């Protein structure tokens, strides 16, 4: 039973990560920086509870806030570049954050044990939940509540006028600009809010695992973040949720019997999804691809 509750908690945390990228992709920005924001939130929230003795809620809030501020700061220069260059820039940002925590030492003594981030060794004993007697069920409900709040707010905003504005920026910047939408405001706001959501997710992650280290926040995590909304389709927040359940539930946990080899499947899945781009089963592109594979259709176009 504990295994399934643990799995639900992973779903919750990865849903927050995926939603932070979902919001950005809605505005047409593909960001690999979510892993960096996630790391900042994780370390900051861990420092607040384990070292400064704060309550979990303000700790998560501060972690989210710090990530948000950094997202705001990198949002402005990142706006100068688009598409591929933004991916490279944000990828570099995540690496800078990871390398920063690789070199980051800050400890205090509590009960004679040094507690805090110690460079490559990571940050151990973020034990707020067990120390304060939270049961697994209570922790899960707490996480579920946060996911519900964030997901619900995004779902509601998506259906409102604001959602239409955000989608307009993502679909066609020129058209959006010509009807008087301020592109900079929307994009930077999405970047900031995405940073806050990823930071909160990171804070929860640190408290769930009780130990974080820089290796947790590499390119794989950044790819997970953007893969969920893309694999799930950009229709609504439920697509992201479904993709999280599929990737974490089926690919990572369900195929555990394959051992290390299952890690290969995630990369392959992304490649396959990009080549096929199925919106739904029976999609015309899927039909064409199958026809092409079986030689029923001559490839006459010369693109790619």
């Amino acid at each position: 039973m504990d295994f399934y509750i643990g799995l639900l908690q992973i779903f919750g945390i990865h849903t927050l990560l995926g939603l932070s990228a979902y919001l950005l992709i809605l505005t047409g920005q593909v960001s690999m920086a979510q892993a960096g924001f996630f790391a900042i939130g994780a370390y900051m929230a861990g420092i607040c509870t384990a070292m400064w003795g704060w309550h979990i809620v303000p700790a998560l809030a501060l972690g989210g806030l710090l990530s948000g501020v950094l997202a705001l700061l990198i949002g402005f220069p990142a706006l100068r570049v688009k598409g591929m260059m933004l991916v490279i820039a944000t990828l570099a940002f995540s690496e800078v954050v990871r390398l920063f925590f690789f070199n980051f030492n800050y400890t205090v003594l509590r009960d004679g044990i040094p507690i805090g981030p110690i460079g490559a060794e990571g940050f151990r004993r973020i034990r707020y939940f067990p120390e304060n007697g939270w049961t697994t069920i209570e922790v899960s409900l707490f996480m579920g509540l946060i996911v519900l709040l964030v997901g619900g707010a995004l779902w509601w905003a998506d259906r409102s006028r604001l959602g239409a504005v955000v989608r307009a920026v993502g679909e066609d910047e020129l058209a959006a600009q010509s009807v008087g939408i301020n592109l900079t405001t929307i994009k930077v706001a999405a970047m900031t809010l995405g940073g806050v959501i990823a930071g909160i997710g990171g804070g929860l992650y640190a408290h769930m695992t009780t130990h974080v280290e820089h290796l947790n926040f590499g390119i794989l995590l950044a790819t997970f973040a953007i893969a969920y909304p893309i694999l799930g389709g950009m229709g609504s927040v439920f697509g992201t949720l479904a993709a999280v359940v599929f990737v974490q539930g089926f690919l990572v946990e369900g195929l555990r019997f394959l051992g290390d080899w299952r890690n290969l499947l995630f990369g392959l899945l992304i490649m396959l999804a990009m080549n096929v781009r199925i919106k739904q089963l029976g999609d015309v592109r899927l039909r064409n691809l199958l026809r092409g594979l079986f030689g029923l259709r001559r490839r006459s176009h010369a693109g790619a």
Partner: protein
Amino acid sequence: MADFWLEVADITQSAMDGLLYGSTYALIGIGFTLIFGVMRKVNIAFGAASLAGTYASLVAFQVLHAPAIVVFAVSVIASGVLGYVVYLTCFRFIAASNELGSLLATIGMLLFLDEVTVVSTQGMPMPYPVLFSDTMLFFGPFSLRSDLLLVFVASVVCTGILLAVIYRTRLGLATRVVSQQPVAALLCGISVPRTNATTFVLSGFLGGVAGSFIASSVGLLSPLLLIPVTLKGLVVTVIGGLGSIPGAIVAGLLVGLLENVFLYFRGVTERDIYVMLLLFIFLAVRPRGLLGRLHA
């Protein structure tokens, strides 16, 4: 005063070593930029595919006990083949207008290759043939590692061959036409997919050269090299200007040099932070890079 001059000599020595080592970054950067030149798309898997080719050459080293030069040749060929595989899986069947689709597919490929090398070697570093490591050349207070010097010379030769192919052969002409006017190229009867595939194989060859030099100058091949080499290559490409071969050469040498200076002052764990920050400075101040064209 003597201390000061000693310090200056040390820094100069670091910078020179870095400059020589930077030639491998230049090769990786040229590979990235070549693909961008013809496809207008970034192939994030390029660095990983190159090193995966170098991994394939370990088979020749460990099983067949082939001499170093054969191992290097296998690395070059395997990387070329992998370049073609990357083209097929990430570019051939994805619409030309869908640049993010290809980008994500190559990120998938990067993770895939990373995992394949980790799983197939249990994550352990493997020894790689070293070229005369003990020989040093001395110039007054300075010394040059002769294998790094060879890497530098070989990189220059490879770059020369590449430039000759691009500017002196019909194949190179076709490549340049496709990169400038794909539709006109099509009208002239140039096969765009075939030209693109050739570019991927060519850049794969370069990557294979770079991969085997990187491995042999360290003496070890580790899966931990894949992602840093990818990032360095991207940094070099962006700083040099996307699509600019001279830019990639200058930026590669510059990054190699600065990296070693950062290493001298701040140590190995912090070194890469400053290399990445260099990228941010360029993106904020000069997004088109050193020698890139506007709106490249």
